[in-house]
């Protein structure tokens, strides 16, 4: 069947398109969601963490640098240096000096000797042993942030060479430090963490923060904070829900596409079948679809079918019937007559009358072709009105007509032939011309006695009509009997 490949082509094409586009899209979407939900979020969290750390470092470095500068100023003061090289009599001048610096900067200063032991006797702060004394080998200013506050430690060097002779630790309250670093969310520092700020470069000192092993809590807290950020959790949910919705939408799209394809292809196949039927002269059932465009196409095709059928009928009509006389043309008559004769075989005889009008040429010559045409129309009308509906009447050409009478006895046929002669002889009134009288000669042949085929039957009837012409016109001559009595 011609439509089958088309059917497969459309459906398989759609299916192939789905396979090529939708399924990879599903996989890509799922992979994307997976990536978004896992790696991207983690990357984003890491990036956030990094950003927070950088901001923290930047801001802390800035703030700590300010503090460090204050501490360094104290640490490099000759008072502190002298105190570390003096006896316990230092208390008289060193303690007041540190108290003055404390009131100026807000930080409590503690001096330790070269091994990290508190230097001043009766220190009101009752300082603990110097924090992390194991780090004394580091020639750095150290910065420590813990729950108690901000500790900045600076080495104190000898007045005579570069040797570290002690350490100055400044302890500030954490609140005071945080209030300075207002741009930092306080949660970043609400931890027990140790950070160390090291000096890098002697000529152009740059400070950086190093998170050491004992400061993992700080890093962990940043991580926890980053993890608990609202958008991160919701982003995860959003991607999971979004990914699921996307898969659902794509699945629905596949089903919809398949249904849509069927709604298109099925009516198209039906339309194709209808077109085939129409090509074979029939109009089949046109499809009804949910797709409006298909329905419009079906309706247009139906209108085309109907208009073409009407046109064909008109053309057939024009081809089958003589336009002037309104009776069958020669070809159509021959076709119909042959068909009728075939059907009559064994069911009774068929009689063919071959009629030739007499003196018709004189009418044309005397009154014109319009009058002749009028005569022919009148003759045809009279003949048709005298015959049965099942009888066939055709124009053979010019003023010759043939009539096939089926399932009729020869006697009845002869009687009809004579009645036709009488009908034709009746005068014909032509407007503006007047009355015209015309006659006819009729040859009669009987099937199958006078011819076993239609052509033979026509030839026999023509021969009989010729005999009637020869014998004086206005008469009926039977091919078998040559001549029958008038009336």
């Amino acid at each position, binding site marked *: 069947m011609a439509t089958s490949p088309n059917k497969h082509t459309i459906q398989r094409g759609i299916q192939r398109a789905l396979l090529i586009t939708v399924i990879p899209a599903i996989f890509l979407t799922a992979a994307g969601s997976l990536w978004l939900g896992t790696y991207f979020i983690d990357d984003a969290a890491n990036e956030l963490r990094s950003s927070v750390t950088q901001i923290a470092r930047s801001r802390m470095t800035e703030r700590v640098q300010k503090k460090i500068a204050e501490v360094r100023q104290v640490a490099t003061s000759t008072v502190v240096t002298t105190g570390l*090289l003096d006896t316990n009599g230092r208390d008289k*001048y060193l303690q007041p000096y540190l108290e003055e610096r404390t009131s100026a900067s807000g930080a409590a200063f503690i001096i330790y000797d070269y091994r990290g032991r508190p230097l001043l006797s009766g220190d009101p702060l009752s300082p603990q042993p110097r924090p992390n004394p194991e780090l004394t080998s580091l020639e750095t200013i150290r910065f420590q942030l813990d729950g108690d506050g901000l500790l900045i430690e600076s080495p104190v060097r000898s007045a005579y060479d570069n*040797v570290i002779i002690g350490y100055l630790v400044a302890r500030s309250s954490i609140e005071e430090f945080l209030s300075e670093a207002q741009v930092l969310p306080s949660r970043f520092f609400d931890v027990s963490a140790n950070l160390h700020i090291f000096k890098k470069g002697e000529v152009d000192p740059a400070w950086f923060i190093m998170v050491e092993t004992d400061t993992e809590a700080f890093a962990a807290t940043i991580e926890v904070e980053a993890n608990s950020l609202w958008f991160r959790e919701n982003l995860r949910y959003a991607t999971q829900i979004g990914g699921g919705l996307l898969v659902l939408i794509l699945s629905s799209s596949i089903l919809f596409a398949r249904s849509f394809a069927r709604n298109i292809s099925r009516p198209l196949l039906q339309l194709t079948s209808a077109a085939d039927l129409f090509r074979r002269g029939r109009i089949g059932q046109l499809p009804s679809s949910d797709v409006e465009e298909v329905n419009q196409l079906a309706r247009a095709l139906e209108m085309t079918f109907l208009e073409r059928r009407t046109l064909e009928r008109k053309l057939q009509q024009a081809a089958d019937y003589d336009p002037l006389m309104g009776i069958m043309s020669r070809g159509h008559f021959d076709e119909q007559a042959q068909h009728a004769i075939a059907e009559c075989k064994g069911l009774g005889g068929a009689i063919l009358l071959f009629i030739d009008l007499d003196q018709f040429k004189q009418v044309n010559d005397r009154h014109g072709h319009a009058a002749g045409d009028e005569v022919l129309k009148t003759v045809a009308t009279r003949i048709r009105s005298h015959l049965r509906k099942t009888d066939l009447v055709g124009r053979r050409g010019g003023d010759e007509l043939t009539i096939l009478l089926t399932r009729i006895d020869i006697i009845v046929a002869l009687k009809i032939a004579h009645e036709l002669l009488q009908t034709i002889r009746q005068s014909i009134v032509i407007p503006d011309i007047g009355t015209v009288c015309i006659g006819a000669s009729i040859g009669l042949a009987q099937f199958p006695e006078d011819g076993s085929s239609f052509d033979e039957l026509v030839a026999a009837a023509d021969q009989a009509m010729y005999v009637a012409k020869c014998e004086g016109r206005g008469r009926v001559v039977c091919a078998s009997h040559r001549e029958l009595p008038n009336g």
Partner: protein
Amino acid sequence: MEFSRRQMIGAFGSCAIASPALAATEDAVILIDAEFGQATSTSAQAIELGVRVALGDIARSGILGTTRLTYRKSDNRGVPAIAVDNFIEAARDPKVVAVMGGKFSPVQLEIVPHAHKLGLMLLNPWGSADEITDHGIQPSWTFRVSLKDDDAASAFINESARRRFSNIGVILPNTAWGRSMSAALTRKTAKATVRIVEENWYNLGERSFLQRYTAVVNNGAQAVLFVANEMEGAVLAREIARLAPQLRRPVLCHWGITGGSFTSMAADAIYDLDWSVIQTFSFYKPRTAKAEQLATSAMSLKGAKSISDLDSAVGIAHGHDLAWLTALALKQAGGVERAKIRAEMERLPQFEGAVRVYDPPFTVQRHDALGEHDILFARFVRDKGLVPV
């Protein structure tokens, strides 16, 4: 670089190996704990040189019999806390019979209570603060062969009077040394015609003394008594040298500047100034035959060509004499028992040292071997160094 405990021990050990006086069979050790590592210091090295000469002589004399007296050294950088730690560490070694300190008075003063607590002698060859020996603790474990601020104050007052300075200004460090000197001057000027018009205190590490000097001068000081070590001394000397002659005042300087490379830091400025330094000893003016022997031996050990190359002469002489006195006490004690040695230090007979003839060196009540009469003033002479006036 930070001076760590481990490094100190390293210095400790390396010296023991390097010292020719040490042997595997050492019986008694004097630890020299001084400012060896301080960049501009020459005092510690001078003390060590004097001790080396003495120990060599002692060994050759055979007065200790089978007992070998050697020395070790440790570096306290002039930092009291380090010195205390070194002292405590040394006290753990029973072979250490005494610890000889360096030039910084605050360092010695911080050790004093530990010396008495641990029962280990502190030998003081340089520090001048009175309380090193005048601490009132009995029995006393501190012995000094050195200048004492009380005597130094008298000497300064006398020198000022001799040079007809009725008004002097004092610039002194804000340390125990400065406080000791200030107290001594206050005591001495109470009975003297010389008046102190201003005491101006400075902190260690100051980069300029011009403002203090100007303040003192503006208060009518005819001379300036400057209590300082080599760094501060060199700064003031160069600043005064840049002043117009009419603005310059004579400087009577304590001897801390001679414990370091003062002349090289002050450069030629010092030779153009009226700058006198208090001393107790000079190789240019030997008082005893031992002093001449010491000069010869010291130059030999150091590889010096002349006595002008023997920096910090007082350190050499004091160290030498203290080592000898310790050896004598060790001999009298008949063993390395610290308490006995300490007691014998107070019972030593007359002894001719490099600085003077000690008769006796110490008593129960007097742990200062030198006195005001041992003091002299010296000035810096080009190519000679410090020469007695």
